[in-house]
């Protein structure tokens, strides 16, 4: 299947003046939407995926759909400069500028408007895949630690580990003074922890 797809890559873009009776002259735009196999991590194309692809000319003037092989066509289009957009869920397509010159029938130019890259043939490929959802990060210790609760625990640990170190580095004399003070206050009791106590 992939091989066939690659073979089909050589697509001609034909412009056939359909009829020139009266003032109406119409061109046919033929092109192809190609969603490469194995684009992105998931690897598709699932069958029926192409059925949700819409090709839109000039912001909604004409809407067409693609065939199973990705080909599409717009009929009876006047000469001038046109814009083709592809709406496909999950893919980002650049709009394509297509020029038909009235003076020189058959001369056609196509270019992606996003990056101004010229196209030798009207094969439209997505510039990138679009993922609409954030990916949930798998469980990790870091994410747990980063949460407010984790930070609280971390702070406690830091205090429990480093505070004694600080105390050790202290002057012997000062240490004694602090210890004296603490004795004066007595041992902290749990009642002091209650919200009522904290407010005092």
């Amino acid at each position, binding site marked *: 299947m992939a091989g066939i797809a690659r073979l089909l890559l050589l697509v001609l873009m034909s412009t056939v003046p*359909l*009829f020139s*009776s009266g003032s109406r002259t119409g061109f*046919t735009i033929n092109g192809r939407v190609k969603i490469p196999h194995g684009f992105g991590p998931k690897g598709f194309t699932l*069958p*029926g995926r*192409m*059925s949700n692809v*819409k090709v*839109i000319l*000039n*912001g*909604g*003037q*004409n*809407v*067409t*759909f*693609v*065939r*199973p092989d990705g080909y599409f*066509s717009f*009929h*009876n289009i*006047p000469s*001038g*400069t*046109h*814009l083709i*957009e592809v*709406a*496909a*869920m*999950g893919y*980002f397509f*650049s*709009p394509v*500028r297509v020029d038909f010159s009235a003076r020189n029938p058959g001369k056609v130019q196509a270019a992606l*408007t*996003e990056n101004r890259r010229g196209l030798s043939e009207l094969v439209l490929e997505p510039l990138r895949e*679009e*993922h*609409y*959802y*954030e*990916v*949930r990060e*798998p*469980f990790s210790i870091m994410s747990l630690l980063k*949460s407010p*609760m984790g930070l*609280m*625990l971390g702070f*406690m640990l830091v205090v*429990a580990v480093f505070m004694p170190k600080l105390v050790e580095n202290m002057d012997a004399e000062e240490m004694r003074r602090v210890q004296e003070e603490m004795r004066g206050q007595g*041992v*902290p009791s*749990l009642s002091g*922890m209650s919200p009522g106590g904290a407010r005092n």
Partner: protein
Amino acid sequence: MAITYAVLLFLIFYSFQPTLSLYEDQVGLTDWHQQYIGKVKQAVFHTHKTGRKRVVVSTEDNVIATLDLRHGEIFWRHVLGHNDVVDGIDIALGKYVITLSSEGRILRAWNLPDGQMVWESSLHGPKHSKSLLLMTNVIIEKDNVVVIFSNGRLHAVSCIDGEVLWNKDFEAESLEVQKVIQPPGSNFVYVVGFAASSQFEMYQINATNGELLKHESEAFSGRFSGEVSLVSSETLVALDSTGLILLRISFHEGKISIQQTPISDLVEDSPGPAVIIPSSIMGLFTIKINAVTIFIRVIGKGKLEVVEKANHETAVGDALSLSEGQQAFALVQHAGRDIHLTVKLAHDWGGDLLKESIKMDQQRGLVHKVFINNYVRTDGSYGFRALIVMEDHSLLLLQQGTIVWSREDGLASIIDVTTSELPVERAGVSVAKVELNLFEWLKGHMLKLKGTLMLATPEDIAAIQYMRLKSSEKSKMTRDHNGFRKLLIALTRAGKLFALHTGDGRIVWSRLLQSLHKSEACQHPIGLNLSPWQVPHHHALDENPSVLVVGRCGPSSDALGILSFIDSYTGKELSSSRLVHSVAQVIPLPYTDSTEQRLHLLIDADKHAHLYPETPEAISIFRREFSNIYWYSVEDENGIIKGYALKSKCNGNVDDKFCFDARELWSIVLPSESEKIIATVTRKMNEAVHTQAKLIAADQDVMYKYVSRNLLFVATVAPKASGEIGSVTPEESWLVVYLIDTVTGCVLHRMTHHGSQGPVEAVFSENWVVYHYFNLRAHRYEMSVIEIYDQSRADNKDVWKLVVGKHNLTSPISSYSRSEVVTKSQSYFFTHSLKAIAVTSTAKGITSKQLLMGTIGDQVLALDKRFLDPRRSVNPTQAEREEGIIPLTDSLPIIPQSYITHNIRVEGLRGIITVAAKLESTTLVFAHGLDLFFTHFAPSRTYDSLTEDFSCALLLITIVALVAAIFVTWLLSQRKELQDKWR
């Protein structure tokens, strides 16, 4: 220093992250999506094969869809372009759906199981004509052939690949082809029609090669009119142009005979001209005289006989071929609250195959269409299922006397939407039936905790997901603290009002408005506008809120108006009235009376203003504000914008105290040869603006936003460039935008974009307007922003003046004061075409704004307003960066995670409505088109509430652990102290 830089950079970088994003498992928590197809035009059943039974439908909204016959769900659906109207559908080879659309120019085949387009062919012809699709049983080289008559040419197309096998032109200038008929078992087709309305033409064409076998014509003394009914494969029934004479036209074996029968011979008291209801039932046809439906049978050699006259509203379905050449057809008649579905045999009027009576919801109105399908019961007899289309555009399947399923497809064509608050929860009245007990609550939180710690089994995850989605909290019928639960009231094209609950999207009530019902006096009533009428909060809390529906009796602006008042909680029509004047504009005034009814001004086509409600109190309020009321009108075909004020009471009719004359204050006439108005936008009436001042951190400066309610944004293009993209060269097209004060008519700003054209989509909020248009030079879409600042307040930055009190900050903004405004603007490229654009709105206007853009792919993309800030520059200074100014890029970014519709398409998107919730951070977003989509959206994340995935249990556990740790350490320290003392 370096560290602060790093921190700042980190913060800036962090703030660039998409502000809204959704995890896949959060889908459906706050959002819902409903899919519709619109009013069904044609239906074809596919029930022959074993497997899933389905029905293929085409609708007036250019949708082709297949529905599951069991439940009414959509298997697949395609929305064709707006000018790609479906002319006919059929099923070919049992696997393809063939559709003819675009006035017979495009023929497509879709794969029946999955909706993949298989082939498409383009048909052309010499002239415009009726489009007819006929599935034949002719086979050419193993190909089944479908015959299409369109644009004056007959085509035979292969069903396999869409190749045109032959075609034949019907060049005759005046020929109007009415039918293409294939007699059963033959391999030729008849093409019949009228030439110059007085000649019947019959062509017999060989279906295998398009060869003309026979051409006959017969002149008729009168003139033919309108539709024809087929009563056999070689007999037609038509009416003459007076509508009084029935014509039976037979072309058996190439011999045309026209037999005339005056209707008065058949119906004694025929009151007026008849209309034929086109059908193709063997030996039977239907005419309609006023409201009476008459069934007439064709017997043998041209004898006509009336079989039934039905005075009730009747819908007749088309013929369904049963076996052995029998044909059945369905008719549905209304009888009070019930409808009677009857299936009859074509040749035997008395013998009913089926007669059922079904109770029908009165809010669905009349039956408009009926399609039947048969199945063979176990006892060998025929059973029938009927698909009916109702006046409110809903679709119902009837089988065995019951409604199997129904679809509210009226919601596919919403005209206007408003919201209403739900009732306040009162003590003693518990609306939620299932209140969770403590154990359940704990269990739920333990499950959640397990989920957070990744310890949950797949069953647990499923249970968590179910719990989150089915939270009874969100679908309660009472007000909530956050203001998330509301009623969305939607007016549809069918004249039906729906109230949807924002929690789960269910229909709370629906009502087909009797005042918008078709009647003698009002032939084509249409709804125009929906606005909140009474929003009780202080004085009249016991009353239910109500909405006002404004409609008119026809498409033209001078048709008489209709008003209807509807209770928002029950859907009851409180009152309605036919107006004696037309309605051109509806202006809700910012005043309410003592019962909190909002004053509305209705402007008619003659520029008179009519005040509603028509009470003395309203008049007295109105008198007080008489000189403060201004409005404007835009005549886009003439390119004139006019401003008005009230003058006096109406001169003409003395008794009408509620009618006022207007005086024209100003007018702006745009040169019609160079400018054509294509878009006008104003600010939303009820938008909240938090602060007028904008701090410019870079130079410690303050700018004052020019926040005026009377600003109008107008976009005009060169008349040549008003067509489609690509029809003009950049040199001959330009786009001009104006900012106009609608009180004084003063043009505050004018800007020209050379080489640009429409369509323009614009949104106006606070002191800025953002618009989207097409740049022909770059051949890309562009978006521009204009911000408007008040210069007259700029000298208030002197602190001393503020201290002394010599500032003018407290003076109100007035349109009369000398306006010294400065505007800033900037343009950026944008990738997609837009269908709609809106801006988030929050309760207090503090939260930063995001633009909501409905793209051509029917998705809604959120874009931070900071990307459209005219102060963006390529290299913002450090101070500017701190302020949150983003470095300038030539195009606006499209971040897939900021599609608020995530992987959903809101097919046929037409409008986006934002409503502020009570919670400042959150906006409620409702997007409608064919589909409906609703979600909560927090433009700057939910900074004022805990996120949904916040784990209460984890917090509790942490606190418990901390308390335990404190206790343990306290014990340890005590013991240590004791040991110290012993030492």
